[in-house]
């Protein structure tokens, strides 16, 4: 491995718990180091020495990764909204499923809510950091569905549920909205963090 490759590998390793968020800083550092090495070669250094000097000028990887940590940890507003709506979605799906079974509403609504809840769950898992173990994500999602179910049971026990068709319309609308927001958030984050495939592309 060349000095630049070794350096980038160290940074990548130090930032790996940020998952896809680490792609952008690593790509920026690579561009910087290679530009710097080219410049140093023009000044007369041989390729290996130029790379070593470029790496030395960049500074050690550990303090850089430490400085990037809180910045990469900060969530974009869209991600926060996606998580909130995704959580509400799972809650709604749980309560919808229970009310469908116990209150005997039409089956296709139940299937719809459950399938969409699954989609949202997958989206939520993809949106979360890789540092969050999948089992924790799954447990949280199931807990939200169960909480929704418990709320529905309570609603029935308290005699508050009237089987109003508008209730089901609201359930479905919120489910679709949640799915849309999660997918939009994922698309936005990809667009922001992933290096563009189009050589001339600029998002300015």
């Amino acid at each position, binding site marked *: 491995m060349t000095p630049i490759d070794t350096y980038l590998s160290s940074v990548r390793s130090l930032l790996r718990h940020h998952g896809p968020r680490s792609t*952008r*800083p690593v*790509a*920026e*550092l*690579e*561009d*910087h180091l*290679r*530009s*710097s090495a*080219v410049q140093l070669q023009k000044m007369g250094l041989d390729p290996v020495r130029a790379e070593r000097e470029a790496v030395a*000028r*960049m*500074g*050690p*990887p550990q*303090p*850089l990764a430490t*400085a*990037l940590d809180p*910045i990469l940890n*900060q969530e974009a507003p869209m991600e926060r909204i996606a998580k909130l709506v995704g959580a509400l979605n799972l809650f709604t799906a749980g309560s919808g499923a229970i009310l469908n079974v116990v209150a005997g509403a039409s089956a296709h609504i139940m299937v719809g809510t459950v399938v969409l809840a699954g989609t949202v769950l997958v989206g939520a898992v993809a949106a979360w950091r890789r540092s969050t173990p999948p089992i924790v994500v799954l447990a949280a999602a199931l807990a939200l569905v169960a909480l929704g179910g418990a709320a529905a049971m309570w609603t029935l026990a308290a005699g508050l549920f009237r089987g109003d068709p508008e209730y089901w319309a609201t359930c479905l609308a919120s489910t679709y909205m949640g799915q849309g927001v999660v997918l939009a958030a994922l698309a936005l984050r990809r667009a922001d963090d992933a*290096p*563009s495939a*189009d*050589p*001339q*592309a*600029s*998002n*300015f």
Partner: protein
Amino acid sequence: MSLCLALLGMKGETLKGHMDLLLLAVLADGSLHGYGVIQRLVTRSGGRFDLPEGTVYPALRRLEQAGLLQSAWTRAEGRRRREYRLTSAGRRALARERRGWAEFQDAVAAVVGAG
């Protein structure tokens, strides 16, 4: 004595406190990628700023998250490249920072010059 003179030969730790103003000022002339920012800092300071080059990236990201910069991927010399530029909020912040810097410089010069 000008505080600008006091910056001569400054090390990274000392420069950190002035990093926002320096980065905003460097980007006031147009968009640049990280390496370009460093190059311009070095050129404008006459090569007297001595800081690990990697320190600009957390600062650039912080300013971007604050809405003072925006960035986009471009491609140059066969490599993907993230370019930064000032937002209108960034231009206003730069104007504020410049005024603050001038006031600070005047105040210190008045005290130090009196001795």
